[in-house]
C-alpha cells in the first residue's frame, strides 16, 4: 500500500515536471497532455499500439525486478534482448516449420539465448564476486557489436545494410485475429506471453521454495547461506531466469512489434526495464501496470509531436524524472510521515491549535 502511494506520488511529480518543461519551451501543457492521451488511447488501434509498446517493457521490467529480488542488479537487459531477438530472427529465417511450431521454437530460442547471455555475469558474480553491474554493461556492448557484424554478415536485409531481412507476416508473433480486433494495430501474441510471464513470475516469487530462497539470498546472503541454502546456485539461477525474461522481451520486440533487427542500437527498453521495475516496486503486478503507463507515454508522444511543437523525447524525460523521485522515495516518505504526524496532532488537540512561535 505504502509502495503504491510512493509510486503514485512519483508519477504525479514526474508529470508535473513534464508540464513545467512544456511551459519552459513555450507550449501549453494541458494541450500537450490531452494530445498525449488521445495519441495513446483515442481509438482501438492506438490502444493496441500502446499495449504492444508496453509488451517488451513488461518483460524487461520483470527481468530487472526478478534479479532485484535476489539482490542482483541486472542492467544488461538490453544485451539480453538483442541476443534473444537475434536468436528468434535467425530461427525464423533459417527453418521452414509450420507456424505454431516455428513460433514456439523462436520463443524458446530467444529465451535460451537471453538466459545464456545473463549466465556469464551470474557465474562471474557467484564464483569470483565480480560486480554484476559492470559485467552486464560489458555484456551489453559485446551483444551490440556481435549483432552489428552478424546481422549484415548472415541475415542482411534486401534494401538496407543496417537491418536484418524482414520476416514474413506469418513468421512473426502478429496474428490476424488480434490485428483485426484492434483495427490494424501492431499488437501481437507477445502481450499474451507477457501476461503469462507475469503470472508465472508472481507464482515463483510468492509460492515456491525457489522464490523463497531467492528472496532470502536477496535480503541477506550470509544468513541464507547459514540456513543451508546454496547461495551461488541461487545467484546463477536468478540471473538465468532474469536473462530468459529479457530474451523473450527481445523476441516480442523484434519479431512481434517489428519484423527485423536494426544494428547499432541498444534497445532502450532494457534500461527502461529498471524504471518499470522500480516504479512497480519489484512486484510482477506492479511491473505490469508500470509498463502500461510507460507504454501510454511512449505511444502517445508520437501523436503529441505531430500536433504540437513538443519533441517526443518528452516521454523519456518524464519517465526519467519519475524514476529519480521513485529512487529518492525517502523524501516522499518523510513528507508523508510529517503529514500524518500533523494530522494526528491536530486530532489530539481539543483546544485551539497554537501555531509555532505564537506563544
Amino acid at each position: 500500500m505504502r509502495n503504491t502511494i510512493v509510486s503514485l506520488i512519483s508519477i504525479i511529480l514526474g508529470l508535473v515536471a513534464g508540464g513545467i518543461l512544456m511551459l519552459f519551451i513555450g507550449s501549453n501543457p494541458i494541450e500537450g497532455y490531452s494530445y498525449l492521451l488521445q495519441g495513446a488511447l483515442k481509438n482501438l488501434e492506438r490502444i493496441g499500439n500502446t499495449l504492444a509498446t508496453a509488451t517488451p517493457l513488461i518483460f524487461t521490467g520483470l527481468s530487472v525486478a526478478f534479479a532485484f529480488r535476489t539482490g542482483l542488479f541486472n542492467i544488461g537487459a538490453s544485451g539480453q534482448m538483442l541476443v534473444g531477438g537475434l536468436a528468434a530472427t535467425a530461427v525464423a529465417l533459417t527453418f521452414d516449420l509450420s507456424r505454431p511450431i516455428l513460433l514456439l521454437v523462436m520463443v524458446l530460442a530467444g529465451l535460451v539465448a537471453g538466459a545464456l547471455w545473463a549466465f556469464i555475469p551470474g557465474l562471474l558474480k557467484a564464483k569470483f564476486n565480480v560486480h554484476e553491474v559492470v559485467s552486464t554493461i560489458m555484456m551489453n556492448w559485446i551483444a551490440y557489436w556481435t549483432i552489428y557484424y552478424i546481422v549484415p554478415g548472415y541475415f542482411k536485409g534486401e534494401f538496407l545494410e543496417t537491418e536484418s531481412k524482414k520476416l514474413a507476416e506469418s513468421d512473426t508473433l502478429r496474428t490476424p485475429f488480434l490485428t483485426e480486433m484492434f483495427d490494424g494495430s501492431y499488437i501481437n501474441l507477445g502481450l499474451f506471453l507477457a501476461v503469462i510471464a507475469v503470472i508465472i513470475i508472481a507464482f515463483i516469487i510468492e509460492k515456491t521454495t525457489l522464490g523463497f530462497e531467492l528472496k532470502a539470498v536477496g535480503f541477506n546472503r550470509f544468513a541464507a547461506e547459514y540456513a543451508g541454502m546454496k547461495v551461488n546456485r541461487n545467484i546463477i539461477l536468478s540471473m538465468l531466469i532474469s536473462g530468459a525474461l529479457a530474451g523473450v522481451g527481445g523476441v516480442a520486440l523484434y519479431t512481434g512489434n517489428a519484423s527485423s533487427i536494426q544494428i547499432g542500437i541498444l534497445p532502450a527498453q532494457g534500461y527502461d526495464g529498471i524504471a518499470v521495475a522500480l516504479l512497480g516496486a519489484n512486484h510482477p503486478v506492479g511491473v505490469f501496470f508500470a509498463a502500461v503507463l510507460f507504454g501510454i507515454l511512449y505511444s502517445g508522444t508520437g501523436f503529441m509531436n505531430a500536433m504540437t511543437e513538443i519533441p517526443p523525447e518528452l516521454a523519456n524525460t518524464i519517465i526519467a524524472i519519475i524514476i529519480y523521485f521513485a529512487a529518492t522515495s525517502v523524501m516522499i516518505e518523510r513528507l508523508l510521515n510529517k503529514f500524518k504526524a500533523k494530522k494526528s496532532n491536530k486530532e489530539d488537540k481539543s483546544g485551539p491549535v497554537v501555531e509555532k512561535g505564537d506563544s
Partner: protein
Amino acid sequence: MWSIIEQIFPYAIIFTIPLLITALGGLFSERSGIVNIALEGLMVIGAFSGALSIHYLSGVLDNHTLVLWLGLLAAVLAGILFSILHAFASINLNANQIISGTAINMIATALTVFLARNITGSGNIRISSGFSPSNVPFLSDIPVIGDLFFTKTYPTTWLVLAILFVSSFILYKTRFGLRLRSCGEFPQAAEAAGINVRKVRYSGVLISGAFAGLGGALIIVTQSGEFTGTVAGLGFLALASLIFGQWKPLGVLAATLFFGFASTIANVSQVIPELAVIPPILLKIFPYVVTLIALVIFSKSSQAPKAVGETFDSGKR
C-alpha cells in the same frame, strides 16, 4: 609495426583523453564512497552544454579559441550542477546509488535531446570548428619521442594530463585527499575523527561531475564537432577503466590508454593491411572481453574502497 603505432598514436590519444578525465572524476566519487554510474549521463550533459555554449558564443565573440575554452568551462559547471542531483539523492536521502545514477543517465540523455530538438530542430548541435592540433615548441624536435608525443597535440591533452598529476598529488599528499580516502574506506571512523563525511562525499561527487562534464565536452571539441545526444557508452567504459585501474590515478591512466588503443585499432583496422586480416568483430569486442577477464583476475585482490556503494549510517559499527 612502428609505423602502425605512429599512425594510430594521435587518434588513440584523442580517444583516451575524455575517457581519462571522466574515469578520474569517477575515482574521486568512488574513493569518497559514492558509486557513480551516472558518469555516462554527466558526460552527455557536458557534451550538450559545451556544444550549445560554443554554438551561441561563436556568434558573439570573435576569438574562437576563447569560445572553445568558455564552452569547456560551461560543460564543467553544468556537470557540477547535475551531479548535485546524484549527491543529494545518495548522500542526503540514502537512495540506492546505482538506481539514482541510472535515473540521472536517463534524465541526461532524454532532457538534452529534448532541449536540443527544441533549439535546432534535428536534435544535433554542430560547432563550426574544434581545437586545432599544434606542435609543442622545442620538444617536438626531439627525434622519435618528439614525433610521437609532442607533434600535433591538442592543448586540452596537456590540461588533462596536468589535472591527472594534480589529482594524484591531492589524493595522496594533502589533508583533503586523506580525508576523502578515509570516507570511502571506513566513514564511521572518519566521522569519529571529526571529519564531516557528508561534506567530503559531496565534494567527491561534485568533482566527478566537473570532470565528467569536461570529458563530454572534450569529445565535441576534439573528435566529433557535433552533439548527437549520446556519448556511445564512453561513460560506462570510463567506469570500467576505473575498476580496471584499481581506483588509482596511474592505474586509471594505464587502463584508459589500453581502451584508447584497443578502440582505435578496432576503428582503423580496415584501412591498415596488417590488421585487416583480423575479423573486425573480434577487435570490437576485445576491450570488453579483456575487462571481464581482468575483473575475474582482480577479484581476489580488489582494491575497491571498502565502503563504496553503502549508504552512510553514522550509528553503524
